[in-house]
């Protein structure tokens, strides 16, 4: 069907930027999966819903600021407030989830915690679906339009902002984990909970902090998602959640750099990869094949390199 069999270089540039855009959000989300796995060996399946709650919190802030009426410097203020409120809301939700659904079963067989996580995920999805009568809400179109770049190679402001903001958040997380005493506690707990406790680390508090950090990253992702893709709804967290989990596995679950790399890799693979595949003679891979590509990658990585792209896990169970 494709008449432009060989597309121009700027086309591939645009698709790469698209891939990095989705990849940024996957990476922000994957960090939450990988950190919680690092300390608890738990796949936090409710993480996609934490992302969704952040996105909704940001939406309500935007509406509070006047929705489509926001203009001038208020644009920056409203986005900043939306991100802060979303981080607070997501963190509160994540702490509550940890306290109610994970801590009571922490010493039970891990399947119990996994089921608990799936239960929380479904509960939150349907709670929000019910409260919004299952309708999509749309973020106001306030972000300044335009782009920067050279001749045909243009990146729109919003994509630049999205990719930039996610990199800032990831650097912030890196500093927290690597350069602060809280970060040292997190690494200690990930290494060995019991020994960390013996050495005076408050394990429960550290685990809560891990949930807060992960939720904050997801909340930023949620607001960026809303600003860019506009539509938010109760079930919006499911697919990005599963994709981010895939990204975490691709990078090597438990590894922070792995989650970031996995996120970008997945974003590029499903966007640029699909465009390449669909240009092969006799193949027609519609847009809906993105998800097939993403999950096929998961299969291939598990088959040939089960520990992920980054090889060994940096966090190892005792």
């Amino acid at each position, binding site marked *: 069907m494709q008449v432009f069999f060989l597309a121009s270089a700027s086309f591939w540039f645009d698709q790469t930027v698209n891939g990095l855009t989705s990849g940024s959000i996957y990476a922000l989300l994957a960090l939450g999966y990988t950190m919680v796995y690092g300390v608890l060996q738990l796949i936090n399946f409710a993480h996609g819903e934490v992302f969704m709650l952040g996105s909704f919190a940001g939406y309500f802030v935007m509406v509070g600021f006047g929705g489509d009426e926001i203009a001038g410097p208020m644009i920056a203020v409203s986005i900043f407030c939306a991100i802060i409120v979303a981080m607070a809301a997501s963190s509160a939700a994540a702490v509550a989830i940890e306290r109610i659904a994970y801590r009571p079963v922490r010493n039970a067989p891990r399947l119990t915690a996994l089921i608990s996580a799936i239960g929380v995920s479904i509960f939150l999805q349907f709670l929000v679906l019910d409260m919004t009568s299952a309708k*999509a809400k749309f973020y106001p179109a306030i972000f300044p339009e335009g782009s920067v770049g050279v001749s045909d190679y243009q990146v729109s402001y919003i994509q630049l902002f999205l990719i930039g903001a996610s990199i800032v958040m990831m650097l912030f997380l890196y500093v927290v984990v690597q350069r602060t005493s809280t970060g040292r506690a997190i690494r200690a707990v990930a290494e060995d909970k019991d020994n960390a406790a013996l050495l005076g680390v408050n394990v429960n508090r550290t685990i809560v902090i891990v949930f807060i950090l992960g939720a904050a990253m997801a909340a930023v992702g949620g607001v960026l998602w809303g600003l860019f893709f*506009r539509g938010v*709804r109760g079930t919006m967290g499911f697919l990005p959640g599963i994709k981010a989990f895939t990204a975490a596995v691709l990078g090597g679950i438990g590894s922070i750099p792995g989650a970031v790399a996995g996120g970008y890799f997945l974003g590029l693979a499903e966007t640029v990869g699909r465009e390449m595949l669909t240009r092969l003679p006799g193949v027609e891979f519609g847009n*809906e094949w993105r998800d097939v590509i993403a999950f096929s990658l998961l299969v291939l990585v598990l088959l040939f390199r089960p520990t992920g792209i980054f090889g060994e896990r940096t966090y190892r169970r005792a």
Partner: protein
Amino acid sequence: MVPSLNGRQIYTMERLGGILLFNSQRARWLWLIASLAIVAMLAIACGDDDDDDDTDGGNGDGGSFETVTVGDGAPIKIGISTILAGDLESLGVPIAQAAELAGEGVEIEGHAIEFIRRDDQCTPEGGASAASQLIEEGVVAVVGPICSGGVIAAQDLYEAAGITHVSPSSTAIAATAPDRGTPYGTFFRVTYNDGIQGPAQAEFALNELKVTNAYIVYDTDAYGSGLRDAFGDAFEDGGGTISGKEGYEKKETNFQSIVTNIQGSDAELVYFAGFYAEATPFLQQLRQVDKDILFLSGDGVRDDEFLAGAGADAEGAYLSLPSPVLQGAVYDDFASRFQAATGEAASDSPFTAEAFDAATVIIKALMEVAEADGGELKIDLGALNEAIANTKIDGAVGAISFDEKGDNSGGETPVTLFVVKDGEFVAYE
């Protein structure tokens, strides 16, 4: 733990937990199997929902008509399969309200009409699930399903149960297309067939908008893929070029890749075959990078929710609406009753007149075939089907009668084109 479990089972549970969390040599194999399963499910879910998945095309011969007995004083049950919650609520609820008006105050041999609403979500799964529920409820006929995807999934169930269903709003060509191994004897529709909408849109694009190159973005359900073909074929027959076609699944929000493809093509117009819930984010993302390209879509997008959601980005969008000429005594009477009952104008929502007519068709047929038997009422579903097939009435949408495929061949349906101007739909001149 659970007392009845012996030690081995608990051990198995724990080991399974470990496997799921990547802690075992076997992990990769289990993950491989699980992942393959996911991929397989996705492949199925993403597969085309259009014409070709009904090759076993169960039809008339599978069904058998029963005779339903309505107890003394009990109401006659008619099902309504529509969307009652979610993005398309503002499309679906008025349809149910309009259908219910047709039964208001009607008594057949002393039995009232009771409508039973079921939410079909405008999806194939929802259509089939609503069908099972309504059949279980013991309805004698159904108004609906609302969407073509739902119709196609539900047709086999209704056919097997011998339940005649009259859709007010399913327009996909595939719903009555003979190449599906049908026509289904129990399916009828009051509304038009997309066979008239796609060519009218193509003619408009070629002759009025003077474009020769279009890009098609379509919902992969029966409605979207039907329009894709109807528009695409007519556009190419008229001398136009289709520079690309891309499908998406319902609830998609990320259209970046499609938008970039459109930019990379020579298309002057984007033809969108789908519903407003996806058209809104799509158009917003398209307008971020391209202010000039024309946007043309159909009845699935012509909704006030589209104007509200897309805001300024909707300006200049062209939308077609095949609509019978809504006038005459029956329509006026319906419209004033609808206004009185709901406080909204019947014309604010598409397909209300069709829903009223669909219910009327069923009720008129019931009056012909229902036989009083003491205090009870006997309804032969085969005779009911026959009576509906032979319908000849003047409805709110004009004359209604059905051809052998189940399409309404009664009246004319001109296709009207609208353009969004200052946040409103204005008829194109």
